[in-house]
């Protein structure tokens, strides 16, 4: 017996839809359903507005430039604690100093981190939703003059191409591909221009990992919370 209430069905599918986790055919079906159901459209709009509002409430404050003062350590109750606590406190002072400093990310990668944060603030919702590999190939062909397609990689973490938008980051042609893996957003910047004066490069420093690759003359820059590239390794030139 199906014990799911209608609200549960909508919540589950709405969440999967907004997270880009529905298979392409179900994603397209949900879109068609939403177009016929104003209440579902309103739910989608409400959910996006709620997500934007929550991100504004819980926006992390900028880290102060200098080390923060630590609270005084508690009085030790035993000789062991009396020896350990000063060491822990000294290490924690160094730790807070480290935490107070901006990460030592390469300057050339800063536009990537900024774009990642911008997309995170928007909930990784694209301007154009990816409905098929053919749609992805059409977009890359029209935007960059060279068609790309994603390849499945057996044994690799699942990745959902959510969609894309265009942003003038390295040139007026820079495309921003949005993907999801394990429920977390990945941003891939694509540009056909010759590498900028200071090209981004692979780095594990900074708020996200950065990976780079060139395919068919196009430069791909993956900005990801994961320690391994999950998207750009699968993108190949279309036949």
């Amino acid at each position, binding site marked *: 017996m199906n014990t799911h209430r209608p*609200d*549960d069905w909508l*919540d*589950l599918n709405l*969440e999967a839809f907004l997270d880009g986790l529905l298979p392409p055919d179900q994603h397209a079906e949900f879109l068609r359903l939403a177009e016929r159901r104003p209440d579902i459209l309103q*739910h989608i709009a*409400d*959910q996006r*507005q*709620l*997500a934007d*509002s*929550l*991100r504004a*409430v*819980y926006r*992390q*404050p900028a880290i102060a430039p200098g080390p*923060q003062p*630590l*609270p005084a*350590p508690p009085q030790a109750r035993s000789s062991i604690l009396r020896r*350990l606590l000063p060491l*822990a*406190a000294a*290490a*924690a002072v*160094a*730790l*807070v100093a*480290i*935490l107070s400093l901006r*990460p030592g990310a390469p300057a050339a990668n800063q536009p990537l981190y900024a774009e990642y944060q911008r997309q*995170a603030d928007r909930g*990784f919702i694209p301007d154009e939703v990816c409905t098929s590999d053919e749609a992805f190939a059409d977009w890359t062909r029209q935007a960059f003059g060279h068609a790309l397609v994603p390849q499945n990689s057996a044994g690799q973490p699942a990745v959902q191409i959510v969609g894309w938008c265009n942003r003038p980051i390295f040139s007026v042609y820079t495309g921003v591909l949005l993907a999801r893996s*394990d*429920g*977390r*957003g990945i941003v891939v910047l694509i540009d056909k221009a010759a590498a900028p004066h200071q090209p981004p490069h*692979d*780095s*594990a420093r900074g*708020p996200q*990992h*950065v*990976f*780079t*690759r*060139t*395919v068919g003359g196009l430069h791909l820059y*993956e900005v990801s919370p994961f*320690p*391994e*590239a999950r998207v*750009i*390794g699968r993108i*190949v*030139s279309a036949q």
Partner: protein
Amino acid sequence: MPRPAQQAATAAPTAEHDFATLLQAARPRLWLVARAILSNDADAEDCLQDAAIIGLTKHNAGEFTPGTNFEAWMGQITRYAALNALRKRRPHGRRDDPASRPPPPDADRADPLRDALARLDETARLCLVLRIVGGLPYAAISAIAGIPEGTAASHVHRSQRALRGWLATARSQGDLS
């Protein structure tokens, strides 16, 4: 054949990873854990410092197994630190009963969304924030909050429904642009 993607310089967490490096990478999500429970930035920052000291002490005592999920481990420590801080604020011996909570401070009353968030149970608010703002999968939320994944998902869905009610009210009152 296209060139393989170049790999990041950092390998998966190992015993050699510095605690500070791991903590710095996890800091944005840990801040969300503290902030979701404590409801203001200053208390969240204090809680993070307390949790960092506790975590460092436990890490040096060998209580963290290298290669396991550092963020989930520190997330639990941060959650306990935040709940302890919250308990110290409440009148002694008083259980957490949403109906008996004092009304939100005037600053929150001026903001209907913050008011609505303050009326959620701490665990529900934590799950909601980690999911919507932190973008964490339910498995990670479950590990931090110490509840089953299905329960975490229920918290998120019910909280969203409650807050969508706030949206409808705010819209009808013209509070939203």
